[in-house]
């Protein structure tokens, strides 16, 4: 039976026969295993995405009638101060994430070499990442309250309470206070990622470098940095798109009051409190387009930079070789 089937491929099998064959099983397994994830993906990502695009052309609430208004929502987003102006706050978050990356890179480098109590330090610094957002909100409302934790610690350091600003109310400083909480929460997580990347560098490279007499700083510049540049780039890209869509710190700590409302906080307020769904959708679509543009630009930029960096790496290697040769020659001369 089986042989005759393979000999005469043109012969049509009945559906049942096909279903029992390997090919049929394959298709069944594929369908059975992919239906649920794909249905979830479409219902909670792509369908809402399409709907949101549609909403952005209507004046509407979640319930009740809808009125087609064309591009009016988009025009409004650019006209209203509280919408587009809120994107300026992203600069604070970008600056914060650069500080965060530098800090966690430093700590990761320190901790990947032998350090007494390294695991305890790592644990302390990582733990904030595991706290839920609302708890973080309360912790920092408490932390920054006038005369409370932060002010007390600063007073220990010799500051006068009268000279200290209201950390969450003073518009000159409150965005920085909020960004600091985000750095507090994520620098440990970033550090753990970097440690993981540094650990995956071949340890022979360090040994070789030590034999060549390279100090810790040179090891960092010539070995660690080049080998973890991919993950650093990834984090830079994530941090820039992340700062455009900054949401959590102002949402849980100040609720966007006193000029701390980032773009998404304003959008959330417009969508769920004021129920201007159309306007909020237009805001979302505009920001998504900005994020995509930023992502693509950054990818291109880093591709370009890396191309140059790699060339430089080769030069650096050549220079190193020459230097070593010179040193060897000098030693031999002695």
């Amino acid at each position: 039976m089986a042989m005759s089937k393979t000999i005469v491929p043109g012969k049509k099998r009945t559906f049942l026969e096909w279903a029992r064959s390997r090919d049929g099983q394959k298709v069944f397994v594929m369908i059975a295993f992919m239906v649920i994830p794909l249905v979830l993906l479409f219902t909670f990502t792509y369908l809402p995405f399409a709907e949101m695009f549609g909403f952005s052309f209507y004046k509407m609430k979640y319930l009740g009638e809808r009125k087609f208004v064309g591009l009016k929502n988009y025009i409004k987003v650019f006209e209203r101060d509280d919408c587009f102006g809120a994107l300026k706050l992203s600069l604070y978050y970008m600056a914060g994430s650069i500080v965060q990356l530098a800090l966690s890179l430093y700590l990761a480098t320190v901790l990947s070499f032998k350090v007494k109590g390294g695991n305890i330090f790592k644990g302390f610094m990582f733990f904030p990442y595991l706290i839920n957002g609302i708890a973080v909100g309360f912790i920092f409302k408490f932390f920054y309250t006038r005369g409370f934790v932060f002010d007390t610690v600063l007073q220990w350091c010799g500051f006068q309470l009268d000279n200290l600003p209201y950390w969450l109310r003073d518009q000159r400083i409150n965005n920085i206070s909020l960004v600091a909480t985000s750095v507090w929460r994520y620098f440990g997580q970033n550090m753990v990622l970097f440690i993981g990347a540094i650990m995956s560098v071949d340890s022979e490279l360090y040994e070789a470098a030590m034999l060549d007499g390279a100090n810790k700083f040179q090891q960092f510049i010539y070995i660690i940095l080049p080998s973890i540049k991919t993950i650093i780039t990834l984090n830079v890209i994530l941090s820039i798109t992340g700062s455009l869509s900054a949401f959590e710190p102002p949402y849980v700590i100040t609720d966007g009051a006193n000029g701390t409302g980032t773009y998404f906080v304003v959008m959330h307020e417009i969508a769920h409190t004021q129920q201007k769904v159309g306007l909020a959708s237009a805001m979302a679509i505009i920001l998504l387009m900005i994020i995509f543009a930023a992502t693509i630009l950054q990818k291109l930029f880093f591709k370009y930079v890396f191309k140059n960096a790699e060339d430089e790496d080769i030069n650096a290697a050549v220079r190193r070789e020459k230097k070593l040769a010179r040193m060897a020659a000098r030693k031999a001369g002695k």
Partner: protein
Amino acid sequence: MSFRKIARVILTALKYLSLVFFSFVAVLPIVSCVVTAFKTDVEYQSTNVMTMPESWLYFKNFTYAFQNAHMGKAFINSTIILICVLLVSTLVGTQLAYVLNRFKFPGNNLIRNLFLFASLLPGVAMQISVYEIMTKLGFINSLIGYIIMMCGTDVISIYIYIQFFENIDYSLDESGIMDGASYFTIFYRILLPLLKPAIVTSCILKGVGTYNEYYNANLYLQDKKLLPTVATSLYTFVGPQGSKYNLICAGVIISLLPALIVFVTCQNQIYSGLTAGAVKG
């Protein structure tokens, strides 16, 4: 030589000083919360926040916060959500990764990219229209609805699984096929047990995320008395009780105890999970 030695000592001192300083910064906000959670109302109002409480055995704030914020109910709900979400998303995620890794078919790459692209969309923005869909499905104020929404497999765990499948030799599948096992049997009996390390890793990541999720829980589980999760139960303290920080801190500490316990016990798995997720993601 001696100059070098001095320089090295100074550098080491600076290194440890910076480590101690940043650990202090990381821990200070939490420690101040713990200190305040043990204070009586009178003590809280009369002493500085950083003065130690009179007694470390004053647990009334904890019991009051626990009852007032319906945290008993919240722990039950969070546990149900956690178990269901982890079960479903592990099963769905591993199955999807199996098909994407083992079968070549047109659209394989398209599906991978669809998931990847989905991860670029910020959740807060998507909730504008997801809210509409959840309303239509009758999923507002429904634990099941919330669970289903949270099950949407995330890209990171799919990548962890796919990466893991790549390292499992295909000859295992082949020997199964030779023995006449169906694809289901091969997946459940042979491959799934081998995936255990990857499953543990992504369950820890997803578990932490689910336990701490509050934005959607707040949006879709609006009945805070019947359907609180541990994270949203803390919303009880917004409003009239907004300045009784000895109570609030007690609530906060209760809510982060489970995370602390998991962290202390599976520290290394959490680290490796994060790293595995990030390198591929």
